[in-house]
């Protein structure tokens, strides 16, 4: 995506510099044709494949019944996130979501007060956290690492700081890492 946007940026800047440095350059092409090429053909060439890619990726991540990936509950409240791991007993983490790499995970998103929205930009997908209702979002992180998450629905004065971290572990290390993180939070409380 970054490479594609860099190519487009270079293309536009090249045209811009050519027009500045060589007045009259491009005048053999009529203004109408420039408008059609730059305003219709170029966006169509760029956006149509992106639409197709997004639809295929979205279809792959649909939480279809019949599959049973790991579940993590994400509960929003003004202005923090709590994560619970029903597949790992009563484990709970605050402000940090731990998940395994290389496998789909269902995030069960809800809220304790107003409407929030759960979003991890690098992992795509975004879904509302609605009080009294559980929304299901299926995501997958291919690589271990640290990602940023953010509430993306205005939810009050401190909405902008309602962030969370996502720590993606190697699958074989996930259970131990989650237990360590939960224990560390428990000891901090004491």
């Amino acid at each position: 995506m970054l490479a594609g946007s860099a190519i487009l940026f270079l293309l536009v800047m090249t045209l811009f510099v050519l027009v500045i440095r060589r007045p009259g350059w491009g005048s053999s092409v009529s203004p109408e044709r420039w408008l059609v090429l730059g305003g219709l053909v170029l966006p169509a060439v760029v956006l149509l494949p992106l639409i197709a890619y997004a639809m295929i990726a979205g279809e792959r991540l649909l939480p279809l019944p019949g599959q049973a990936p790991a579940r993590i509950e994400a509960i929003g409240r003004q202005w923090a996130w709590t994560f619970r791991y029903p597949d790992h007993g009563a484990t709970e983490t605050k402000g940090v979501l731990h998940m395994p790499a290389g496998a789909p995970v269902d995030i069960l998103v809800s809220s304790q007060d107003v409407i929030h929205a759960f979003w991890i930009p690098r992992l795509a997908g975004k879904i509302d956290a609605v009080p009294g209702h559980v929304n299901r979002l299926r995501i997958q992180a291919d690589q271990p690492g640290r990602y940023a998450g953010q509430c993306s629905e205005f939810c009050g004065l401190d909405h902008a700081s309602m962030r969370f971290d996502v720590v993606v572990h190697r699958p074989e290390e996930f259970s131990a890492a989650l237990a360590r993180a939960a224990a560390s939070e428990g000891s901090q409380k004491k």
Partner: protein
Amino acid sequence: MRERPVPSRQLWWLAAGFTVWCSALVVLYAIQGIGCAFAWPTGTLRLWLAVALLVHLIVLGWMWRDIARASPDFGSGPTGALLHWAVVATLITALVATVITLGPPLLLTACI
């Protein structure tokens, strides 16, 4: 010869194409929501969605053909000609937008 002014009510034609697009979006969304809530068979749901989309495309195509023949009174002179061109352009854009934004989802999973 003086230019005959464009009747102001004819400016509404600029919104006509995308009003139909809005209608298509709302109707398709509603059919999908109702169909999924009442567990319609996938084939039936897709058929209703396709029919709704087709009806809106026919309406847009009919408006395009009709307006291209300049049946409304856009006045005379360059302003009327510009308005006529702009209305036809919005109708074509709305038609293409309807196909691109509402057509492909018919091929995707309808309900989960």
